[in-house]
Every structure is written in structure tokens, then in C-alpha cells.
């Protein structure tokens, strides 16, 4: 049983078909890079897994549980970082993470120690009691990742976690993801930055116009297509090379 199994997933937004029968499998404990250009269907796929968007047809399962029928059980096992999200500017990270923890069914007492632990785990360096509005973009992204980790999920879905970060921030976030996978977590992260994928992923899937056009280990894909990096592989497969 894979950690994530998607079969024939279709999502229509009116006349626009965002997903056209997507098939995808992510094994337990692997870091899977879900790549593709903007508008390829990456965010829609993640939103379906988390239950924010309902599919038109097809099925999606997480740890063998249907994401529609067993949504609550699925979300107990998933930590999700959206592509865009608004942190409450006047909250402190501690207050915000406490709220997210309570929404995940945890008690405030239990959260007191967990928040410090998760902040250290992802390398959050600033004061947890400082207002979020004064915190750097890289550290805000780390708060985003911390909220996804707060209930100790087995699977992490991260939507464009490195977009908009400077090289140092990007590197820190990628290292955090790698460290999480070493602890046995399954990580599925979407990105259009293929160099990020090469650094940390066990497997990569490339989605284009709502269908998975390529899947495999980064090194074997480069070898197969005779290219130096995944960008060139993608351009070849998408017909632009």
C-alpha cells in the first residue's frame, strides 16, 4: 500500500479541466517532487488530497483511506502547507501554533513543549513571542511548515514551499524537508523549481496540462534523456526542447 494513491483523478472548473485523469503513487517514507509549470494542476491535486476541493471523478487515497469519505481520518495523518496563506499578523508564532494545535485536537498543555520542539526542528531562529508582522519571509515560511508538523503527521504535503525565498531560506527549507524524511515522514512537495527536486527527492513526477507525463528517480531520468539537469528533461518531454 502506497502512502498516497491517486487513480484517474479529474477536476473540472467549468469549461476548464485542471486534472485530466491523473495517476500518481507515493511510497511511504519517500520525498516526492511534484513538478510542473504554473497552472499544471499541482495545487488542485494537493487541495483534493486535503479535502479543500472535491474531484469531478476518480479516486484519491491516503494510507488506504479515501480522501472524500474519510476526510477527517486522512487529515489526522497529513500536514499541509498551502502555496499562499495569510498568517495572522498580530499574533505571535506561539499563539498561532497553539491555535493550529487546538484545531488538530491537541490540548494547550501538551502544546507548550511541542511548539518549542517543532520550532527547533525546522530551524526557526526568532523569538516565538514576537509579533508575526515583524518576522522575515523565510521565518514566516518556517512557521507555515511548523503548523503543518504540529500534530506530528506521517505525511507532509507542501505546496511550493521554497517559492519566493532567497537562496539561504530555500536551502534551510530543503534541509528541513530532508531531515523530516530521514525521520521516516513521507513528503510530497510541489514546485516548478526543478533544481530543488534534484537536491532532495527520491522520486519526481512531472505534471503538464493535468496529466502526469513523466515519473522516476531524478538521476535515472537525466540518464535516460541524456541531459545535465531536470529542466532539460522537462523541456524535452513537454515538447519544448
Amino acid at each position, binding site marked *: 500500500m502506497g502512502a498516497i494513491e491517486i487513480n484517474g483523478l479529474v477536476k473540472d472548473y467549468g469549461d476548464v479541466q485542471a486534472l485530466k485523469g491523473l495517476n500518481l503513487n507515493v511510497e511511504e517514507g519517500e520525498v516526492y517532487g511534484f513538478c510542473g509549470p504554473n497552472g499544471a494542476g499541482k495545487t488542485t491535486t494537493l487541495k483534493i488530497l486535503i479535502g479543500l476541493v472535491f474531484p469531478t471523478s476518480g479516486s484519491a487515497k491516503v494510507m488506504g483511506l479515501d480522501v472524500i469519505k474519510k476526510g*477527517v481520518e486522512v487529515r489526522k495523518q497529513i500536514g499541509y502547507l498551502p502555496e499562499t496563506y495569510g498568517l495572522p499578523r498580530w499574533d505571535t508564532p506561539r499563539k498561532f501554533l497553539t491555535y493550529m494545535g487546538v484545531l488538530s*485536537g491537541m490540548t494547550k498543555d501538551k502544546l507548550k513543549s511541542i511548539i518549542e520542539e517543532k520550532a527547533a526542528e525546522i530551524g526557526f531562529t526568532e523569538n516565538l513571542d514576537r509579533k508575526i508582522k515583524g518576522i522575515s519571509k523565510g521565518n514566516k515560511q518556517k512557521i507555515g511548515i511548523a503548523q503543518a508538523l504540529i500534530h506530528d503527521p506521517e505525511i507532509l504535503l507542501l505546496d511550493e514551499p521554497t517559492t519566493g525565498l532567497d537562496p539561504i531560506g530555500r536551502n534551510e527549507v530543503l534541509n528541513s524537508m530532508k531531515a523530516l524524511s530521514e525521520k521516516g515522514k513521507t513528503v510530497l512537495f510541489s514546485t516548478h523549481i526543478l533544481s530543488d527536486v534534484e537536491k532532495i527527492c527520491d522520486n519526481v513526477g512531472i505534471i503538464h496540462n493535468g496529466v502526469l507525463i513523466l515519473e522516476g528517480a531524478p538521476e535515472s531520468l537525466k540518464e535516460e534523456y541524456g541531459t545535465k539537469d531536470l529542466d532539460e528533461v522537462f523541456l524535452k518531454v513537454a515538447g519544448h526542447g
Partner: protein
Amino acid sequence: MGNEIRLGNLIYCATFRLVFSIRGLIALLFSIYMVTMIAYIYDRLPDTFFELIRLFTEDSGLEFQWFLFDNGLSKAVTIFVAPLFIFDAVSGDRSDDRFGLMLARPITRTQYMLMKLMSAFFAFGIVFLPIMALGYPVFVDIVETLTPASYFGTILLLYLLAFFTLCVGLLISTLTKNTLVSFLALFGLMAIIMLPNASKYSSEALEKAAMATPHYYATYFTSHAMDALTYIGFVIVIILFSLPFLFLAIWKFKKESL
């Protein structure tokens, strides 16, 4: 893993987030302002405050001041204070891109909506009930008798009226994408609902029109001729007016792709 969601915990946490926020402060200041302003205009507070204390020790001879209550406080509360706690409950999360954070947790959408509604209801109560209880002398007059039952009954019925406002507000917040639009829509709608009540003494027709709003039942309460059964009936009527709005809001939200 293995954490079970308790709705009570969610509501408790969300309530205090609302109370200790800018809106909580605005609601508190507005409530204080409202009561003291009326006290100042009618020059009532110094004398009647002591009369209020006597309510619980002997027959005070206080009577509910219908005009101030019905045309002053209850409308201001319904229009201005209660909506503050609900207008952006859903539309705020939508416009600030927070659904991905909130609804990725192991909660159902129904639990999310109930958390929003009940936290607003309790936050409103925490701010408003003490102010109302202390400000009550403004609305009593030394004419006939006012009992502790009618003192608490009136305050609680007014509080329940806020439940109706909050249910309407939750629906509006669910249907709108922008917090300003949801605030103006809720503010405007509540003002329209108040209009038949504001002019209900002008004619029999208007009084009948006023009866079509829960506000009528919440402010019908007077210090005389109100038995317990009638009171319970009014409570039921207000709840019956509120529930369709709540159910509609939950139904709409549950089937939406976010």
C-alpha cells in the same frame, strides 16, 4: 496522531481569540459608550443605580423603561455590536487565504462553522453581558415593580437576539468573498429588519409586520404580564427564526470547493 477533536476546546480557544482582539475592544468600548451615553442624556444613572441593588433585597418599585430598551439599546446591539464578531468569520478566512491552514486540520466543515458561530456568541456574551447587567439601571424607572426574574430575563432574551444576528451573519459571511462586503451586507440587512420594529407603534399594520421579525419577540419582554411559558415561547420563536440561516450557511459551505 490519535488526537480527537473536542468542539468545546475549539470554541473555547476561538472565543478568547475574538475577545482579546481589536474587535473585542471595539465592542467593549461601544457597549460602555452606548449605556453611559443614554445615562447621560436622561440623567438617570446616579439615582437608579442604588435602586438596582434593592432589586435583590426588597421590592424596589422599579419598572422596565420600554422606550429606551426597545428603541435604543436592543437595536444598537443588534445592528452594531453582534455583527462585529461574525461578519468576517468565513469571508475573512477566505480573503486572507486561511482555509488551507484551518481546514487542513482533522475537523469537519460543520465543526468549523459551529466553532465560528458559538465562539462569536460567547465572545459577544463576555463583552456585552457584564456591561448590560451593570448598565441596566439606565433602563428602569420607578413606577411599578421590577423583579430579578425580569431583570435577568430581559438581558438573556436580548442576548438570544444576538444569536439570530449571528446566524444571519454567518450565512452572509459564507456567501461573500470580501470582508467589507460582508460587513456592509450584514449591517444593512439588520437595519432593514429593525425598521418595522422601530415604527411598529405607528399603525397596526406595522406592528403586524414587526411580528415577522425575531427582534419583536426579543423586545416584547416587559416587567409585567409575562409568565414563564410565554417567555419560553418567545425563546423558541427566536431560535426557530435563527436555525434556517445556520443550516443554510453550513449546507452552502459543505458543498463548496475552496
